[in-house]
């Protein structure tokens, strides 16, 4: 990993785009200094019992049948890690990661859209908030200083939507440095509350992206996304993992750059494993593992000031369904990763898999409210005040306690 692009390089690019310097973020010191937070939402309902298989639980193999994992990477007497996650395993073993084996949002409808809304809005119920909890975190932090945030992907996810401005970036695009159109459009959009801010942020991020990518010497960064290079299905999967790793590395580059985002939100798709789940899940998890490895390597020394939270909208049924997969469930696992985490065991409790312990007789029961974990992270890592966490960031959540001592 080469050094991050200098402020001079970024300003040079910005001048070429006709941007005034004030559009770029100033060093966001004050409130959170160099500390960083990354959220990774695994969409589709990630099967927690496959992510962190409770291999030591006496009911695990009986319940899971053909879907029970026999070659899990070992963590402790009860839990293992899916074998597709060697890099994450290494982090956990080094005390830079912890698992949360039975966690859920307050929503019980088992609908992707409701549950993702509740996960990302931070509300107690669906339609409870039209902005994301991470966006409201930016507002809470803004009292102490400016904090930059970035979502990765072509559309803006709910978690970062809201009144506080956030940038977005989609890999694989560049704009010509000498174009006039950006400046002309900024004029045209002066009274447009949607297009104006969106364009401004988009241009600022593009500038950083170009600078960050020109600072990376690895030629694979320049490979066109999505081109197939041979090698059959394994080749495609390897390519996917390479792309994930390089995405992690590029994002890390942005976050280390002066004025770069300190908060980032990503999502990964493809976890809704209703049929023939073992192979599909292994493939998606390998992508997650590569992404994390790319992030950790790319962040370099900043990894020690970073926390990554990997979460999903709900888990899946404890028993397999009729098609080699699982259906929508309730509790799943979450992961906390980062160089600055305090060492510790599992976060939350393990309710077990006895029939009486299952939620509605079919799903792993939750032992922790997702908001409690997130409050603990926001408080310890970013210094968000309890008052804000209980009222504005997570509305009507005074009864949900923050998990203490995470960082």
């Amino acid at each position: 990993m080469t050094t991050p692009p200098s402020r001079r390089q970024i300003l040079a690019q910005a001048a070429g785009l006709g941007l005034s310097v004030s559009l770029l973020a100033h060093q966001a010191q004050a409130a959170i200094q160099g500390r960083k937070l990354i959220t990774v939402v695994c969409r589709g309902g990630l099967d927690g019992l496959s992510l962190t298989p409770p291999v030591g639980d006496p009911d695990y193999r009986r319940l899971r049948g053909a879907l029970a994992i026999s070659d899990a990477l070992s963590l402790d007497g009860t839990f293992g890690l899916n074998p597709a996650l060697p890099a994450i395993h290494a982090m956990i073993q080094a005390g830079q990661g912890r698992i949360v084996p039975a966690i859920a949002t307050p929503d019980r409808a088992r609908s992707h859209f409701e549950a993702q809304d509740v996960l990302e809005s931070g509300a107690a119920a669906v339609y409870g908030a039209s902005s994301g909890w991470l966006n409201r975190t930016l507002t809470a932090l803004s009292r102490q200083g400016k904090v930059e945030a970035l979502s990765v992907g072509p559309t803006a996810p709910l978690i970062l939507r809201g009144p506080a401005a956030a940038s977005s970036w989609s890999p694989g695009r560049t704009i010509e440095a000498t174009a006039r159109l950006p400046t002309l459009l900024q004029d045209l959009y002066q009274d447009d509350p949607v297009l104006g801010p969106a364009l401004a942020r988009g241009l600022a991020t593009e500038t950083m992206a170009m600078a960050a990518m020109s600072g990376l010497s690895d030629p694979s960064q320049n490979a066109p996304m999505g081109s197939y290079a041979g090698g059959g299905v394994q080749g495609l999967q390897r390519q996917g993992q390479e792309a994930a790793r390089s995405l992690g590395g590029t994002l890390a580059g942005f976050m280390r750059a002066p004025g770069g985002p300190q908060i980032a939100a990503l999502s990964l798709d493809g976890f809704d494993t209703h049929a023939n789940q073992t192979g599909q899940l292994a493939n998606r998890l390998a992508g997650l593992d590569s992404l994390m490895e790319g992030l950790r390597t790319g962040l370099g020394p900043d990894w020690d000031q970073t926390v990554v939270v990997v979460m999903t909208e709900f888990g899946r049924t404890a028993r397999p369904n009729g098609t080699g997969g699982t259906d929508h469930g309730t509790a799943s696992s979450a992961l906390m990763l980062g160089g600055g985490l305090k060492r510790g065991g599992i976060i939350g409790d393990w309710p077990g898999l006895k029939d009486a312990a299952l939620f509605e007789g079919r799903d792993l029961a939750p032992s922790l409210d997702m908001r409690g974990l997130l409050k603990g992270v926001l408080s310890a890592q970013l210094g968000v005040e309890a008052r804000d966490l209980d009222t504005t960031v997570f509305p009507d959540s005074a009864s949900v306690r923050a998990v203490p001592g995470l960082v």
Partner: protein
Amino acid sequence: MAERDLEAAIAVTRFGLGARPGEIAMARGDPRGFLLAQIRREGADQPQPGAATAQQRIAEFRDYQKDRQAAKAAPGSEEADPVKAAQRLLRTETAVDFTTRARLGTTTTTSFRERWTLFWANHFTVSATKLQIATVVGPYEQEAIRPHVFGRFEDLLVAAETHPAMLLYLDQAQSVGPDSQLVALMKSGAGRRQGLKAPQAARLTGLNENLAREILELHTLGVDGGYSQEDVTEFARAMTGLSVGGLRDRDQLGAPIFRSIAHEPGARTVLGKRYPVGGQGQTAAILADLAAHPSTARFVCTKIARHFVADTPPASLVARLEQAWTSSGGDLARVAEALVRAPEAWSPEPAKFKTPYEFMISAWRSVGGVPRDISVLAPTLNAMGQKPFSPPSPKGWPDETAAWASPAGVVARMAWSQSFADRAIGDRDPVQLANEVLGARLTPRTATAIARAESRAEALALMLMSPEFQRR
């Protein structure tokens, strides 16, 4: 008179897919009549009349899968690389399906009809994110959606849910009743004697609720429509047996079939109503009741209002559409008429942000052009977050501004507008073009910017990126 000009512009740009040169003038005589004339019993236009059917495409894909087994025996050769072969297949056929549909969008003189159709295709999403579905999406739209868009909702519902594409997309084809004869056969070992091979048997062993859930949650009642988990499971049990012919079904390969030995026996109770013992008839009866349910009218009419008029549609508009739906027994032509006649649908402010597809189609329409092939469509749509035929989930493409007006999305549109304008402007007068294409919706600020542009191409790019062109 100015009001008539504005209404003509609204008719073409909000209800339609954007104005082709001269189109606003055509609508000026009777803007509402211009739209009402596009409603017809026969349904939508077909992008590719006489194209391959879904059955043919599914059979083709199964053949490729068979060949793949053979290829594994002779690895190394380029020809035999199964993934390359699949990509060739998907590239050419899916590309043609998508391009012809996009061309229809850019050339049609009845673009309200086409927008109405795209709404229903999205409502009953079948996505190419599943590899085996990619070549079936085009035929699915042509066979299951387009003929029914101005018919009865129940007919559209049945056609969509029982089409092989939907049965494969939402895993219904492999769903088997836990107490069905098939499962009993498997357990007794008799299945092998019947000729069912072990892997096939292992796949067909139990109930899959995916389609049942999405029908209730996304296609009919809606998530608040008043159904329970038990309703989902009972509905799923009723639908067992609905499947798609496989290799062993010979000339039924790729066709919708009913496997009675996979059907869960017994009566079913869904939403408090008992459905007696039956085969396929159980599904038909339940779908009929779902179509007639008041929650369905409310849920779907809200979506229609949201798609055409505003992210948060006025309650009075939804009520009008519901009234037309309920009083006509779900006649979608009546609902479309109610939409056209609703005063709320004619407010002057452009409130809906165009999706990437809508934006690109309207750009081609504005210059009277057509997309040449997939290469001018797919990479850009991918970059803007709307991969062809590939909504990320059964919910389909989102319909709200916030989903599409992201910073990265806007920059992608800007970059594309620039290169599109360079290629497309030719000798046209951009000021005249802007007047023709936006009519009374062209704002003075945009008109001035266009007039002051340094080049024709820059002027056209400004028009395409103007607030009034980015919305409708």
